[in-house]
């Protein structure tokens, strides 16, 4: 195993449109062979960042390096990257084969070599035999494959994908997710894609960068983003979360306690909190990490083996149940007026009958489950 090689570097890149700062001092490295996702809500600057890499926008400040070479001022047709556009932009007046061959033709690749590589690229995206068709005879998914083949046939250093799955219907989107991941593995080219859909990013990417208002919020693997978010924005943007604002009551190296007005009980953590300076802290707790237990006469309070009793056990009443088939989401009202969402997998065919509306319950969670956020 050789050490991963950096292929793309953004160095303090900013982009201004008049007074609006679309991309704000972003520094980011992407390594060879990664399937990298730029994730964020619309208008967060992710597309601008991608377009700067492709060459359609020039950074106002900072540098962009591909293979160590500054390409900030290089026009798009001279960069070793190719893009799959959101609308696919398959040329409607050319056949599928002509579309795929276009980039090679512009580069002056000989006809025989061109034909061979087009054939190869079409096979790669499973469009053998479609070469003579016109784009209007293809489905949306097939057009996307043409766009993929057209970009891959040029053997770019990096393949850029702008919202690759947003125009497909739900079933096809899911199939395409795994297919894109397989394709990337097969060709070994670095993929960089932009998406606003967190599921898409988590499912496909090896690493994600979350952006908000032009700023890079966090760069991490999908599971680290989900389990160890570094800010309220990331915790909230990725998945669903219960957020409790409070202050640190106890902060020792091996445990900490947060008091929040949103919860009737204190929140016990089995680790210290570094970097807190007496200000507000936020405790982010994913709904699936909360267990529901029966509360009331004849039901003793649950004891979680690893949790010091009484700490992470909050009484509440079920107010709302959303049955989603594979799981149910319970909205539980707790003392103090807040609601806590708890998710319960329906492991057997009768699980959804365990709890009902207005039932008193205990909410229980482990001391290591919540993420403590300082911003």
């Amino acid at each position: 195993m050789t050490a991963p090689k950096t292929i793309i570097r953004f160095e303090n890149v900013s982009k201004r449109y008049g007074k609006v700062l679309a991309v704000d001092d972003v520094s980011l490295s992407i390594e060879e062979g990664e399937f990298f996702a730029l994730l964020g809500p619309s208008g967060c600057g992710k597309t601008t960042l991608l377009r700067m890499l492709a060459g359609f926008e020039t950074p106002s400040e900072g540098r962009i390096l591909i293979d160590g070479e500054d390409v900030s001022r290089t026009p798009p047709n001279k960069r070793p990257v190719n893009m799959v556009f959101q609308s696919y932009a398959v040329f409607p007046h050319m056949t599928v084969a002509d579309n795929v061959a276009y980039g090679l033709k512009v580069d002056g690749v000989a006809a025989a070599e061109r034909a061979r590589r087009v054939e190869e690229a079409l096979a790669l995206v499973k469009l053998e035999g479609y070469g003579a068709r016109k784009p209007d005879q293809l489905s949306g998914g097939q057009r996307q494959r043409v766009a993929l083949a057209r970009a891959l046939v040029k053997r770019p250093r990096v393949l850029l994908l702008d919202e690759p799955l947003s125009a497909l219907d739900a079933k096809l989107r899911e199939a395409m997710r795994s297919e894109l991941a397989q394709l990337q593995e097969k060709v070994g080219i670095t993929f960089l894609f932009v998406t606003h859909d967190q599921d898409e990013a988590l499912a496909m990417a090896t690493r994600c960068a979350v952006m908000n208002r032009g700023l890079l919020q966090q760069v991490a693997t999908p599971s680290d983003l989900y389990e160890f978010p570094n800010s309220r924005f990331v915790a909230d943007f990725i998945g669903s979360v219960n957020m409790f604002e409070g202050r640190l009551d106890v902060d020792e190296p091996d445990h900490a306690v947060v008091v929040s007005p949103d919860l009737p009980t204190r929140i016990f953590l089995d680790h210290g909190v570094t970097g807190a300076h007496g200000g507000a802290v936020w405790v982010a707790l994913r709904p699936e990490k909360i267990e529901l237990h029966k509360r009331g006469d004849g039901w003793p309070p649950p004891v979680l083996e690893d949790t010091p009793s009484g700490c992470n056990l909050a009484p509440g009443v079920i107010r709302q149940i959303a049955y989603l088939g594979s799981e149910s989401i319970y909205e539980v009202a707790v003392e103090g007026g807040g609601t806590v969402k708890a998710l319960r997998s329906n492991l057997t065919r009768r699980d959804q009958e365990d709890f009902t509306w207005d039932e008193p319950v205990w909410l229980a969670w482990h001391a290591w489950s919540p993420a403590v956020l300082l911003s």
Partner: protein
Amino acid sequence: MAGAALRERPGPLDYLSRWPIRAWLWAVVIYLYAPLVTLMAFSFNVSKRNIVWRGFTLDWYKAAFEDSDLITAFGNSLTIALVSTLVSVALGALTALLLWRFRFPAKPALEGALSLPIVVPEICMGVAMLVFFTEILPWPTDLIWPLNLGAIIISHISFSFSFVAIVIRGRLASFNREFEEAAKDLGAGEWRIFWDVIVPHMRPGLLAGALLAFTLSLDDFVITFFTSGPDTTTFPVKVYSMVRFSVTPEVNAASTILIVLTVALTAVALRVSGNAVVAIEAGEGL
């Protein structure tokens, strides 16, 4: 059974199965095409007067083909139409590209000026051309054919290129800039992008514009009347002078030839451009 019963009652959009609508349709068709059919039919009439049918003959076609003035005028018309179409399509396409692609200080002024030849009454254009070609740019009348048609060609271009530019501008509005970016991303420079991506997209507009320019030029009377000299008569002007003496079936014959020619040209142009869908798209561009 119920389905069959339902089908017999026309639905709200089944207009053509109701007889009043059908009668209306035929009334419109007759109103539009009866004059043309009559014109063509009487070009085969033995009688010199376009009133009663006295038998079939091709003599009027023979007469028309032997009328050297008429043939010259016809040739002039086609030449003028062809040249002015080529030039106004080129000019119109470039103007449309300019307005679509660039932002510059005089843009609103140019856009306004572009529609002037369309809104200004033709008679004013004609008089203006007359003044222009006598006072400012006197066009020599003794040039050899086809250079002597220059004044008419220039005046035809001056009004038809606006139509072409507006048609193509409309077509360009539907251009997805991602096509251009995709071509650039794949390595194409500006010149290649223009020929490989932008021109193919413009094609229906170019064709519609060309058809428009050709027919505008071919049947223009007013402006041509003011700019044509004694040796540079066009077909419409010649027909007008013939009608002033008497309406003979010779005029009918010549007109029939012109109609058949334009219809055939339009059909060929639509064929070449692919299919009727393209024509519809071009129409949307308007």
